[in-house]
C-alpha cells in the first residue's frame, strides 16, 4: 500500500471549482450594474462560450473538414442546432409580436459580404463566434484578429447604406408568408435534405468530433439561442457588439456620427451614448469570451502553445479580422446572426448567406493553404 499522502478530496476541489466561482460573481456584478435582464443574458453568454469551447463546436472547422475531407459531422451538428432552435424560435415569433426575428434585406451586399466573410473566416480560422471564443481562451491568431473585428464591424455598418444602394429587395420572413407550421416544414425539409446530401457524400472514416459532445453542444446551443430570444427580445447575434464598441471609441476620439445613415439613427445614437453593458449583444459577447476561458482554464488548455507563428500569419489574422468585421455588416451578420439566427427565425436571407459564405469558404481554404496554415 502506498504511503504517499493524498490530499483530502475537498482540498483538490477548491482549485477545480475556483474558475467556476466567476459565474455567480459575473451574474451578480452584471445584475447589480446593468439590471436583471442583462444579468440573465450574461449567463446565456457564459453558456454559449462554455458550450463552444467544451465541444469544439466550430462553424468554420465544420465547413472546412467537409470541403476538404468530406467529414459531415460538424456540418450535421450545425443543421441540428439550427433546426432545434427553429422549433423554439418560429412559434414564438409567430405568436409574440414583441419579439423580433433576424430578418434582413436580400441585397447584393448580402451576397458579396457573405462570400467574402466565408473566405476570411477560413483564413482567420474562426467566424464571429469562433474568433470571440478562441480569443477568450487565449488563441493568438484570434486575439490578433479581434481589433480588426471591432474596426471592421464599425466601418462596415457605417458604409452599409452605400452598399445597399447597389440594389436590394425587402427581407422575406417565412413566418409571415408561410406561417409557423409552413416555415418549420419547409425549412426542416431543407435542412434534412442538405444533411442527407452531406452524409451521402461523406468520405472520411475518422472524425475530429469523437463521442456525443458535438451533438450535446448542438442541443445546448439551440436551447441557449431560444433563451436569448426570450430574454433579449431578439435572436443571438455577435458582430453588432464589436461595431458598437468601435462607434463608442471613435466618438470618444471626437467623431460625430449623427450624420451617418446607420449610426446616426436616434436609437443607435442613444445606444452609443449609453453604457456598453446595456447592450444585449455586448453582454452575451462578454459572457461568451469568459465562458470559453473558464472551460479552457478548467481543462488546462487556455493560451495554447501553437509553436512559432510566422509574421505573415500574424498579418493575415489581423487583416482577416478586419475583413470579417466589415463583410459581416454588409451581409447582415455572421454565422451566428445570419446563418444560425437568420434561418432559425425563418428569414430567407439566412439561406442566401449560407450559400454565398459556403462558396467563399472554398476560396478561403485555398488562401489558407497558400499561407501555410495548419488544419
Amino acid at each position: 500500500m502506498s504511503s504517499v499522502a493524498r490530499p483530502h478530496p475537498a482540498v483538490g476541489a477548491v482549485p477545480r471549482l475556483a474558475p467556476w466561482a466567476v459565474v455567480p460573481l459575473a451574474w451578480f456584478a452584471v445584475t447589480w450594474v446593468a439590471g436583471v435582464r442583462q444579468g440573465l443574458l450574461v449567463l446565456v453568454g457564459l453558456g454559449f462560450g462554455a458550450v463552444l469551447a467544451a465541444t469544439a463546436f466550430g462553424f468554420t472547422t465544420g465547413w472546412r473538414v467537409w470541403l476538404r475531407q468530406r467529414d459531415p459531422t460538424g456540418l450535421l451538428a450545425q443543421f441540428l442546432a439550427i433546426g432545434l432552435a427553429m422549433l423554439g424560435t418560429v412559434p414564438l415569433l409567430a405568436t409574440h409580436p414583441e419579439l423580433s426575428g433576424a430578418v434582413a434585406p436580400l441585397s447584393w451586399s448580402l451576397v458579396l459580404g457573405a462570400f467574402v466573410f466565408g473566405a476570411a473566416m477560413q483564413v482567420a480560422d474562426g467566424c464571429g463566434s469562433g474568433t470571440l471564443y478562441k480569443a477568450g481562451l487565449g488563441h493568438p491568431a484570434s486575439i490578433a484578429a479581434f481589433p480588426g473585428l471591432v474596426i471592421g464591424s464599425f466601418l462596415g455598418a457605417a458604409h452599409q447604406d452605400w452598399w445597399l444602394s447597389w440594389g436590394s429587395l425587402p427581407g422575406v420572413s417565412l413566418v409571415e408568408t408561410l406561417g409557423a407550421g409552413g416555415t418549420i416544414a419547409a425549412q426542416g425539409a431543407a435542412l434534412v435534405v442538405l444533411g442527407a446530401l452531406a452524409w451521402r457524400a461523406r468520405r472520411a472514416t475518422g472524425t475530429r468530433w469523437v463521442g456525443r459532445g458535438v451533438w450535446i453542444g448542438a442541443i445546448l446551443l439551440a436551447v441557449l439561442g431560444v433563451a436569448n430570444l426570450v430574454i433579449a427580445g431578439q435572436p443571438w447575434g455577435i458582430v453588432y457588439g464589436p461595431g458598437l464598441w468601435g462607434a463608442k471609441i471613435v466618438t470618444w476620439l471626437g467623431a460625430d456620427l449623427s450624420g451617418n445613415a446607420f449610426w446616426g439613427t436616434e436609437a443607435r445614437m442613444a445606444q452609443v451614448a449609453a453604457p456598453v453593458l446595456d447592450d444585449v449583444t455586448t453582454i452575451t459577447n462578454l459572457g461568451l469570451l469568459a465562458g470559453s476561458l473558464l472551460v479552457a482554464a478548467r481543462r488546462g488548455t487556455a493560451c495554447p502553445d501553437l509553436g512559432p507563428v510566422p509574421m505573415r500569419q500574424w498579418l493575415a489574422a489581423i487583416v482577416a479580422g478586419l475583413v470579417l468585421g466589415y463583410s459581416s455588416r454588409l451581409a447582415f451578420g455572421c454565422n451566428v446572426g445570419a446563418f444560425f439566427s437568420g434561418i432559425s427565425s425563418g428569414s430567407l436571407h439566412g439561406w442566401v448567406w449560407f450559400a454565398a459564405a459556403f462558396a467563399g469558404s472554398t476560396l478561403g481554404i485555398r488562401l489558407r493553404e497558400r499561407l501555410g496554415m495548419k488544419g
Partner: protein
Amino acid sequence: MRRIGLALAFWAALAGFVVLDATRSAPRDRFAEPPPLALGNERASGAGHCSGK
C-alpha cells in the same frame, strides 16, 4: 511556450474598455431598466442586432 502575456493583455484591454466606458457614458436610470424578460413585455427598440439596417 504558452502565450499568457498576450492573453493577459487582451483581457486587460477588454476590462479597461468596459471601465472607461462606464466613466464616459450617460448615467443609468435604475428606474427605467427593462423587465427581466422581453417575452410578454414591450417590444425592444430594435437598435442592436446584426440583421438591422
